[in-house]
């Protein structure tokens, strides 16, 4: 039941929001509402942990004749991502308070719709329902970028929409095909889909369709071309939603749907996909070396990180998968933090061109400290959240193929190169005209960043808490795959 509440609460909230015009009221409502959603997510976690481990299942036969049921539930994998979503959305909402967006009611409603769709994607235990939420998430994302984005937003969001939509359609076809291969009576339930009887050739086609859909969403090289532009042109809140959470939809789809269904084909063809993902790590890292736009640099770094997570899931062993799970959360936290700081800098300095910035640490030592911590998480320093995931993923990939791990490990070096270069140009050195009167963080802004910083160290120093949550389910999936 709690799952359903968690899913419907944002919807209810957004319906309420539509009745208000006053910006202040909207902000208070959206912020407290999303905080309440976070409380619900924590309650769900506590319930899951303490009482039942019963997947908090909610099921309602929807299209009975077709075998489609509104089936939502939570296992460890879902919980981790639901908590990430519920945590990041209030922070993202809070970060918008210093912006003056036109028609705020629609803006906040779209964010809430997005939250609901994301939670729907993560909690759906039924293939068709999963697909519906998957597509539903695209709509608010597109509107947020297209209505409140930068100058080139129309052309860029059009590409984003078409590209990701094309991928999703393939997934729908694959799901329907799978449906007809499920044991009688046909059903879209994930247990049924797992049990679908497929010939190797059929499985390969299904794998291709799934992989394409997820690879575009994540994005994996070379299906990434929509991403840097979209992240850059979106409003700050949009970039955070896209990179912090929406990216995880693709990775989640891999472990929940693609790996259990297509494990045979992955064993056969997975190397191709892994090679693509690893190529993307090096490719994106190299390109990030020369970016002058802060947001674009972060966008490229995200492609590199996402490539590693995709490769880790595809090698299908416990260490790499667990690493990818915790890295999904870590990446969500770090990239949201980086975009938050970019937003703070852009608002104060009026630019996010790296060449126009500099010396901010002189004026804003607190910001410099927060920025440094988030950066360290992002370049995977031990005792920060990024390390645990990268260590486990690279170790898992190493067990699969040592050479892959060595190449993927280059991300450790390149990540340090472009991130420290960026930090040096933006924060250190002498001040520039744009940064002359730079204000340090206010208390409210520190409050906004503090949860992220706490999580960076918590996850880095005591990751067991986070690793334990998805462990049984990841183990089960991998056991099933064997």
């Amino acid at each position, binding site marked *: 039941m709690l799952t359903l509440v968690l899913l419907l609460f944002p919807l209810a909230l957004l319906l309420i929001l539509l009745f208000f015009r006053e910006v202040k009221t909207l902000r208070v409502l959206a912020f407290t509402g999303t905080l309440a959603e976070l409380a619900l997510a924590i309650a769900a976690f506590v319930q899951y942990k303490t009482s039942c481990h019963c997947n908090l299942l909610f099921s309602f036969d929807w299209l009975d004749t077709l075998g489609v049921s509104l089936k939502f539930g939570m296992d460890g994998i879902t919980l981790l991502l639901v908590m990430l979503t519920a945590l990041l959305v209030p922070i993202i909402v809070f970060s918008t308070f210093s912006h003056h967006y036109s028609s705020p009611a629609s803006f906040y409603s779209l964010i809430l719709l997005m939250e609901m769709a994301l939670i729907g994607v993560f909690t759906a235990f039924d293939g068709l329902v999963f697909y519906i939420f998957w597509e539903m998430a695209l709509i608010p994302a597109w509107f947020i970028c297209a209505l409140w984005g930068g100058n080139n937003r129309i052309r860029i969001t059009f590409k984003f929409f078409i590209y990701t939509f094309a991928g999703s359609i393939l997934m729908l076809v694959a799901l329907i095909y799978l449906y007809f291969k499920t044991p009688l009576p046909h059903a879209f339930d994930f247990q049924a889909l797992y049990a679908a009887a497929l010939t190797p050739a059929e499985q390969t086609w299904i794998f291709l369709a799934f992989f394409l859909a997820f690879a575009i969403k994540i994005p994996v090289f070379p299906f990434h*071309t929509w991403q840097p532009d979209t992240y850059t042109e979106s409003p700050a809140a949009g970039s955070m939603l896209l990179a912090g959470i929406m990216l995880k939809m693709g990775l989640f789809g891999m472990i929940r749907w693609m790996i259990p269904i297509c494990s045979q084909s992955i064993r056969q063809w997975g190397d191709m996909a892994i090679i693509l993902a690893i190529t993307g790590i090096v490719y994106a890292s190299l390109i990030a*070396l020369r970016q002058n736009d802060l947001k674009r640099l972060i966008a490229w770094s995200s492609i590199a990180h996402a490539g590693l997570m995709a490769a880790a899931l595809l090698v299908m062993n416990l260490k790499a998968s667990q690493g990818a799970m915790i890295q999904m959360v870590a990446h969500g936290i770090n990239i949201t933090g980086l975009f938050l700081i970019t937003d703070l800098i852009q608002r104060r300095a009026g630019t996010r061109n790296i060449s126009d910035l500099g010396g901010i640490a002189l004026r804003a030592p607190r910001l410099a400290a927060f920025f440094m911590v988030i950066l360290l998480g992002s370049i995977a320093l*031990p005792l920060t959240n990024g390390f645990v995931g990268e*260590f*486990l993923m690279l170790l898992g990939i*190493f067990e699969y193929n040592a050479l892959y791990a060595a190449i993927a490990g280059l991300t450790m*070096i390149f990540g340090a190169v472009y991130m420290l270069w960026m930090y040096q140009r933006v924060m250190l*050195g002498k001040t520039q005209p744009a940064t002359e009167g730079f204000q340090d963080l206010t208390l409210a802004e520190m409050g906004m960043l503090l949860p992220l910083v706490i999580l960076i160290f918590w996850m880095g*120093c005591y990751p067991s808490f986070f690793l334990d949550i998805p462990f049984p389910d990841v*183990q089960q999936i991998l056991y099933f795959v064997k």
Partner: protein
Amino acid sequence: MKMELIVALIPLMPLLGFLVLGAGFRTIPRKITAWVGPGVILASLILALVLFFSNGKNTGPTEYHFFTWISAGELRIPLGFLIDPLSLLMIFVVTGVGFIIHVYSVGYMKDDPGFNRFFAFMNLFVFSMLLLVMGNNYPVMFIGWEGVGLCSYLLIGFWFRNQEYNNAAKKAFIMNRIGDLGFLLGMFLLFTTFHTLDYHGVFSQARSLQPGDSTLLAITLLLFVGAVGKSAQIPLYTWLPDAMAGPTPVSALIHAATMVTAGVYMVARSNILYILSPVTMTIIAVVALATILLAASIAVFQKDIKKILAYSTISQLGYMFLALSVGAFSGAMFHLTTHAFFKALLFLGAGSVIHALGGEQDIRKMGGLRKALPVTWLTFLTGTVAISGIPPLSGFFSKDEILMKTFGSSSLLWLFAWLGALLTAFYMFRMFYLVFGNQFRGTTRPDHPLHESPLTMTLPLIVLAFLSFAGGALNMPGLFGGNQLLEHFLAPVFSRSSPALQGELPISHATEWLLTGITLAGVLLMIFWAWRRYVVKGKGLLTDETRRPFWVRIVAEKYRIDELYDFLLVKPSLWLSRFLHDVVELRIIDRMVNGIGQAAIRTGNLLRYIQTGNVGFYLFVMVLGVILIMFFNILI
């Protein structure tokens, strides 16, 4: 107090210092910082002493587990510490020398606006270094390993207004990271081979392997890559001279006494793995010797007092690796310890000189400082004599032991190591004479007359000078009637590697005396030469460098290795970056994606014409379709 608590508090004290000073870096008054910063390190030192003495006769290794850090499947990495003679020695070096340098910093950094930040970072460094040496498994060592790299980065770029300094800091971090990737891959291979990363588990399994095992070869080489980065050996040494951009106490603590010796500690810790990999040992020997000679030869021509010391550090680290490569693990640790004393002393002395001259670092603009800075002069002399290897100072004993062990392994190795020792004596006394000998050649500002440093700075110098003088007593060899305390103390750690060492010819006492005599004679000759050249003839002040012979220019320009790396690595990656973005990304991939999109639109445009809205046409097509289907049915 419970042992466990004491052990945990040793690294936690500096961490506490960091947290307090870091959180209140704007509000805490300097006076309090001046007590807190060094105070927490002293607390760790005292706790380490308590631990040492309460252990009593029990020198066996003790492990302390706190909690499971990372786990996945059969992988289980505890946050645990190992207290054994080796880690105790390192704890003493880190907290002891660390404390002295912290006290010195109170005086040295007195007027710096970043006083609190400085001590916060220094405390964080000591915390990381303690984790590095105390961990009972490789990943915990790696926490410290990367942590000290971070602190090094933060402290090299401490004066971050200057982009040159920031470049140096970034270079240090990145070169370290290159090494760290090797370390990481080494750990992965360790895990896939032994299914554990705990020292105990790895070493007890490794003991049963055959010498020359190929997996061990790969493991030891990968780990050594990490050591090369951290301990500034060829080819990853170029960051260390640049790292001198940091405040001088940083150079003393991080870039001389402790952090850069982490690689030596790591190899000594993994002694069993290395002793079973003769090929790796040979590679280490070659790298070490090449580093000794390369760095020493560069040091001869440097003008910056700190750069000379930096190259000297690289060269001395080479000696430690040379010792490791011939299996003289306790010899390496001995030299590590005495080097920590005299190199910290030399750096702090250099700091005192720089302080007195208001920031001047060019030795050509110094000279005659003996009278103005008597304490600095005497202590600096002690350090110089110690590093040159003259008895009875500590450096003599530790270097002599390495040379002996090297000779026992190969006389050719010994010859090169001997050459290095001569170079060391020469460049050290060149610097010493140019700084303290003859007359003062620089200019002093009227508001900043030459002056001896305050007590907070000279007292640490005196303590370190005493340690550099008497440190040899730690491990006095039998040849001089000593009882090799340190070697016996460390013996349990290295005992398992000693069987593999047997079969080497022990050197007779007569040979030992002869070799020591040859070395000593050469060293004294070098000092004499330096004295004639720089004191009597007054050379070494050349300002017109184009008149130098070509080979001298090459050496003086550090063999242009930095330029080579720039040409081979930095430029190509930037070029590749641009190529990938401008050509591969925009011209190829993106164009292809857009092409597919446009093709779809064009097809749509074409198909649009079919939808004419003419019902007759639709009917016609339908009938045509039905006929075709029937036709095909008949065919099939």
